[in-house]
């Protein structure tokens, strides 16, 4: 297990290095010159040369790449092009916790509700409850978050005035974004939970447990859920990834000052250092999520050994 852990963690390093190189290349070869955008109407060749020097963009390509990787490894992502008084590291430190908290709450809500509904639907297959849950799953998967968000804002904020339209900092303000962000993962987790539990319930050892007189809740908890957990855990991991990327829409709709909205603003303002850092941070998050999911397999199922 320790060997596997070391191997998997070790594998992430070249992965992140490769990602950093690709991100740097994408920024370097993207159309449009950031210096010309930043100077706008104040552009002159002299002013551009000064700014290029100040930003280190006049150095050889390889030197820029090497400097970027060395600094990124030390969590130094430079300064914002648009506001040079702000270090990108500080921006990440201020905004990333908000995005992670938002995604975590959405996944927590989706997991609790999704597993409950999925198990309920599996225990009472083809019942009215099952059918209603199936309809909810289809709706959750098919309706995009910006539509769900607009409808919820219209009802809860504009019509009934129960919750704020947007913002962050109070539990009330978090209700709608968490629900919107949780909708799709909830549908995924419900569907996978239902399918997984249904499949395990047909296994011989479940029949044996029932036939030896074990009560239904005990069968469900001890035998069914534990064995059905693997695909559910995988889906929860994927749901976290979805919530992290879904935040790009939700944070903008609900004006949440998280990393995703800052990244969107940076794209609109051509703040290349923030864009590159945001991509690198999200890549790292995905790598970490996948690692945690892999490791959880071994923890949850003794049959899984590496």
């Amino acid at each position, binding site marked *: 297990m320790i060997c596997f852990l070391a191997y998997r963690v070790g594998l992430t390093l070249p992965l992140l290095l490769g990602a950093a190189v690709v991100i740097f290349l994408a920024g370097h070869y993207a159309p449009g010159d950031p210096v*010309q955008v930043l100077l706008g109407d*104040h552009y002159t060749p002299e002013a551009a040369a000064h700014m290029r020097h100040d930003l280190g963009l006049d150095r050889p390509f390889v030197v820029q790449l090497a400097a970027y990787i060395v600094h990124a490894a030390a969590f130094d992502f430079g300064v914002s092009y648009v506001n040079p008084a702000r270090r990108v590291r500080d921006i990440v430190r201020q905004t990333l916790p908000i995005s992670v908290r938002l995604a975590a709450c959405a996944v927590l809500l989706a997991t609790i509700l999704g597993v409950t509904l999925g198990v309920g639907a599996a225990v009472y297959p083809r019942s009215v409850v099952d059918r209603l849950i199936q309809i909810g799953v289809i709706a959750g998967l098919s309706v995009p978050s910006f539509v769900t968000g607009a409808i919820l804002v219209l009802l809860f904020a504009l019509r009934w005035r129960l919750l704020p339209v947007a913002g962050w*900092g109070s539990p009330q303000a978090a209700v709608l974004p968490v629900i919107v962000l949780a909708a799709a993962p909830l549908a995924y987790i419900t569907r996978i939970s239902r399918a997984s539990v249904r499949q395990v319930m047909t296994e011989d050892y479940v029949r044996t447990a029932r036939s030896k007189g074990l009560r239904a809740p005990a069968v469900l908890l001890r035998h069914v859920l534990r064995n059905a957990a693997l695909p559910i855990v995988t889906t929860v991991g994927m749901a976290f990834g979805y919530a992290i990327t879904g935040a790009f829409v939700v944070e*903008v709709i609900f*004006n949440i000052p998280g990393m995703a909205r800052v990244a969107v603003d940076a794209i609109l303002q051509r703040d290349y250092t923030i864009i590159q850092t945001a991509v690198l941070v999200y890549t790292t998050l995905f790598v970490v999520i996948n690692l945690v999911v892999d490791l959880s397999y071994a923890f949850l199922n003794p049959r899984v050994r590496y």
Partner: protein
Amino acid sequence: MYVLRRVVVVAVAVGLAAAGVGGGIPSPATGQGAGVFRVPLGGEPPTGDPYFATDFSSGDLTFLMYTTLVGLDSAGKIVPDGARSWDVSPNGLVYTFHLRDNVQFHSGRKVTAADWKWSFERMGDPGLRTAVGDVVLAGIEGYDAQQRGAAGLAGFVLNPRARGGFLNRLAYYAAVVLDRDVVEKGGKGWYEARDAGSGPFTLKEWVHNDHVTLATDPHYFLGAPKVSRVEMPIVPQATTRLSEYQAGQLDLVSVPLADYQRIRSDPVLGKELLVFPRAQIIWFGPNPRVYEPFRDARVRRAFAMAIDKVKIAKAVFFGFYQPAWSIVPPGIPGFYSGYKGLAYDPAQAKKLLADAGVAGKLPPLTIAMNPIAQDYQMAAEAAAAMLKENLGVDVALQKTEFANFQQGMNRRTVFLLLYSKSPLDRVSYANPDFDRFVDDANAAPTEAQRTVLYHKAEALAVEDAAMIPIVFSQFALLKKPYVHGLETTPALTGWLRFNAVSIQK
């Protein structure tokens, strides 16, 4: 049912609170106290240093905290601000400003002549390369400031060849006096924690990407503002700002173009709508560098006469925008009122093409659109259709990423300005008569003479179709009925400082 909904919402909110979500400082848009004025910023201000504030968010923010020598009133007239009055020498080249003796920085220190001098020196510091220095200091040959007892004097000597618009440049919102102690001791990001201003409001809190709170300065030299503070949540999305206004979380917002008709016909919101001119023009720049036929003025004129700007204003912008016959928008000093320019006349346009020998032979034209706002694209689409219909020219519209658009502008492959010696030339228009009018206007001793010459230059540019004005845009603001004393302006985001604003619920 209502109670049930409320219980569900409270339950979910309590659950989220328990989960630790949304911890931190409550968003200002969620709490309203008496006398609090809530106005959004359209994005995170890239800077709080007025000398680098060239975007709307930074401009809106710094404008409320700082003092200029002179300002503009809501009619666009120059009025005293940090200076109580000024004298002009008989030759019109030396301006002496009498500084007020009751202006003080938010630190409590009195503003002196030395502060004004240091501020203008910093603005023009070549090592600092401020963004506003070339705008404010253009045409100024020298300046000095001296303290005479409690009051002070600030003097400016103008270049006789470039004296035009001096007072208007001084009224630019960024030509402000700074508290030297705050700037020098605060380091590179001195403006993050406190401001160096002497305006009606002072920086209380700046939570990046979330909100800015301004507190009232009770010692403001024109009288303490009537609100207790200004809360400025940072809301980049126009639709979100509008929704927050509708939900009662904001007091003043601008109306997105797409929502204008709905708001205007809404029985409640329609009464809260303010519409007034904006210092902005949408125009078409025929550049002969990228489209050879534009070298012939007859072809440019034909294009100008083939675009029905009245129809565009009415049908595309539903009468909200106004057809533009001249270049300088209404509300800006020098607006050429009553000038009619080139009228829509497709028959005459076809004749001009025939005279130029290019009728039916025009190569396809590509119009690059400014991608930053929807209205540029709406105007371009309508103009392209009219050019196709009236002149038979194939027009393609090119929407590029803004960085490429800006690059094209700087390389002069796309658009304006018209003075051939201007660093801002965008359409490679070189007409010695136009340059002479501009040179003479800049050297004219009086504003009246200057205006006459600028009008001649403007008329020449319009009739030469060096630039084809399409429409003047307008401001549309929504203001809550309990907000009183708001003064509007065609510039900036549409409002003056909020020192006269009061909340009367």
